[in-house]
């Protein structure tokens, strides 16, 4: 792996491989914070239960239980789908993009970031099915030799969606697992109880860390990373086409793909920061997830946030420049209309709330960063809502203008997906190393190499 270009080490180098290994592999093997974990699991399970109940009601009664109507016949289902998927993207970007760029700080974050991706994408993935009028026919979207001889319609952004999301989910799982195997081996070798030994033993597939294995593993891992980056971009661009492909004012714009991708990364990094902050205090990982990490996350958040803000600006410019009467109407409705709160909410939570990040002290303060990240997550949720609803509720013909009011079931299913996200996530941080063990050791190794190369003075400076 190319050496970190940071002058000063991201991790305190005064820790041995052994300690790191025991510390991280120890988390699943003898789990430190059972009570808090159980409480969290309990709460998330309640939400998950709510999801099941809502889904049963939904399937037995119909999507009418939602606040949908004509013209607003897409709302929560689609906009939460976009929101969840966006969150997922950060995981892939962190572990893949930063791997390729050789940003070593990512090694402390990539594992749980990827894990987060998996379940965020899962949450997103169930929405397109839930929102169908006749979900039991969802398999019609796949090309199979049916006796009716009708095939899927490959010009439809929804059809693209299915392929994109499934590809994304599969690749994310593979990428995550391939990266996990050496750590599973480490856990296996640390395990003392038979049950753990078998559990990790099977999962580790008998990884031995032979030089040949490592070489092939490197090729595969970096190749996957190289594929994951364009994949992420494509997936969310494609999701944006779900809207841009329609003629509806407020959707029919070429800025959507980048706009969506950046927004996605933005919300994702926010969630990563939140998880990082919680995990490190939960498992006392301050030695691995350092304030420097938070600092970097803060900077990334600020950067992506500003790009998203650019999106807002350009959207307005675009409309004014086009001068299209319907586009202008939609713009006014967004800013001043019935759902103006979603627009201004997005501005406030996504842009204004971000500004403190210009200050290093804020970036390095877990609490501040956590608060800002939360606001970003909310802000992005509002933004997706705004893009969807404010375009649909007043499209071309004044006569067909309508309103949308989310019902209890809209909220129930949304809350449910949060449970769907956390239950498996909590289970995995309980069962697997939350931070990549071997990559951490690799960083330490490289740092020590640097340290030996560098002059003592700099080293001292670096330690300070």
């Amino acid at each position, binding site marked *: 792996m190319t050496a970190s270009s940071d002058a000063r080490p991201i991790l305190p180098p005064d820790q041995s491989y052994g300690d790191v290994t025991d510390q991280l592999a120890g988390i699943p093997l003898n789990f430190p914070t059972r009570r808090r974990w159980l409480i969290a699991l309990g709460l998330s399970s309640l939400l998950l239960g709510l999801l099941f109940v809502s889904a049963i009601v939904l399937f037995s009664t119909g999507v009418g239980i939602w606040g949908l109507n004509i013209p607003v016949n897409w709302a929560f289902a689609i906009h939460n789908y976009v929101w969840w998927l966006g969150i997922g993207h950060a995981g892939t970007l962190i572990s893949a993009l930063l791997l390729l760029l050789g940003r070593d700080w990512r090694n402390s974050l990539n594992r749980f970031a990827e894990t987060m991706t998996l379940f965020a994408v899962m949450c997103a993935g169930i929405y397109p099915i839930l929102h169908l009028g006749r979900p039991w026919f969802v398999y019609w979207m796949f090309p*199979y030799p049916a006796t*009716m001889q009708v095939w899927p319609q490959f010009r439809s952004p929804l059809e693209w969606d299915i392929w994109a999301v499934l590809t994304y989910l599969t690749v994310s799982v593979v990428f995550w697992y391939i990266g996990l195997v050496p750590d599973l081996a480490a856990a296996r070798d640390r395990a003392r109880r038979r049950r753990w030994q078998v559990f990790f*033993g099977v999962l580790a597939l*008998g990884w031995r860390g032979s030089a040949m294995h490592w070489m092939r593993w490197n090729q595969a891992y970096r190749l996957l990373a190289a594929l994951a980056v364009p994949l992420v971009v494509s997936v969310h661009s494609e999701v944006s086409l779900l809207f841009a492909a329609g003629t509806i004012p407020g959707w029919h714009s070429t800025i959507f793909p980048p706009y969506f991708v950046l927004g996605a990364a933005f919300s994702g990094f926010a969630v990563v920061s939140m998880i990082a902050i919680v995990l490190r205090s939960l498992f006392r990982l301050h030695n691995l997830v350092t304030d420097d990490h938070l600092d970097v996350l803060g900077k990334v958040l600020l950067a992506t946030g500003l790009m998203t803000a650019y999106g807002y600006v350009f959207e307005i410019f675009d409309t004014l420049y086009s001068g299209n009467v319907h586009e202008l109407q939609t713009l006014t409705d967004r800013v001043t209309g019935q759902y103006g709160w979603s627009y201004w909410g997005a501005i406030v939570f996504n842009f204004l709330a971000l500004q403190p990040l210009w200050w290093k002290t804020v970036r390095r303060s877990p609490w501040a960063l956590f608060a800002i990240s939360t606001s970003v997550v909310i802000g992005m949720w509002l933004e997706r809502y705004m893009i969807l609803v404010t375009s649909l509720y007043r499209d071309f013909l004044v006569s067909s203008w309508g309103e949308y009011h989310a019902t209890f079931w809209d909220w129930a299913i949304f809350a449910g997906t949060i449970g769907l996200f956390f239950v498996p996530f909590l289970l995995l941080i309980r069962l697997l190393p939350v931070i990549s063990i071997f990559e951490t050791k690799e960083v330490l190794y490289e740092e020590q190499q640097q340290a030996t190369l560098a002059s003592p003075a700099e080293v001292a400076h670096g330690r300070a």
Partner: protein
Amino acid sequence: MGQIFSPAADTWLRLFLVTGISLATGSIVFAVGLARSDWITSANMHPPAQPAPFSHRHHAGELGIDCRYCHTSVAESPRAGLPPTHTCMTCHSQVWTGAPMLAPVRASLADNKPLNWQRVAVLPEYVFFRHDIHISKGVGCVECHGRVDRMALTFRAKPLTMQFCLDCHRDPAPHLRPKDQITNMAWQPTGDRAALGHALMRDYGIAPERLTHCYVCHR
């Protein structure tokens, strides 16, 4: 510490993976096959129980009664029509007057209650099939109903899936016959089938490109 797994474990693991994968793929293949099987299309299945054991073989085959004698409206109506009890009794008031197997028929006439036949060639309610146009375009009964004249008890002879319909709508020629042979179950083309088919297509003015869009059958 020693080995966690015995050497056998690897064999088991591989076995497990292989079976898993083959099951997954196998089930898909199975499902695709099943959809075409008689079990799903209910073609060639055991004839359903009917109020009276009516035999097309006897009436259409042996006695050679024309289909249209009972299914009167087949040429001018979307549906072929089932014979009113009265039609049965035109003969059976003379022949087999006392036959026990005809008791339900007599009862039906007596207390003015229709016979409750079980349908055999059933299409989904969203399929709007029209007998009249098929008859007038030279599609014989046998094309969809099979050799009814050989069925002691009537059963569904063709799958009647959308595929079945489309095959003919896309390439009608091989399924066409002269109008006077429509109800002739036994008819066999003499000479070049293909040539005949295309000649008939011209005569009947059949344009396949108009026959495969959705509203032809669905509304």
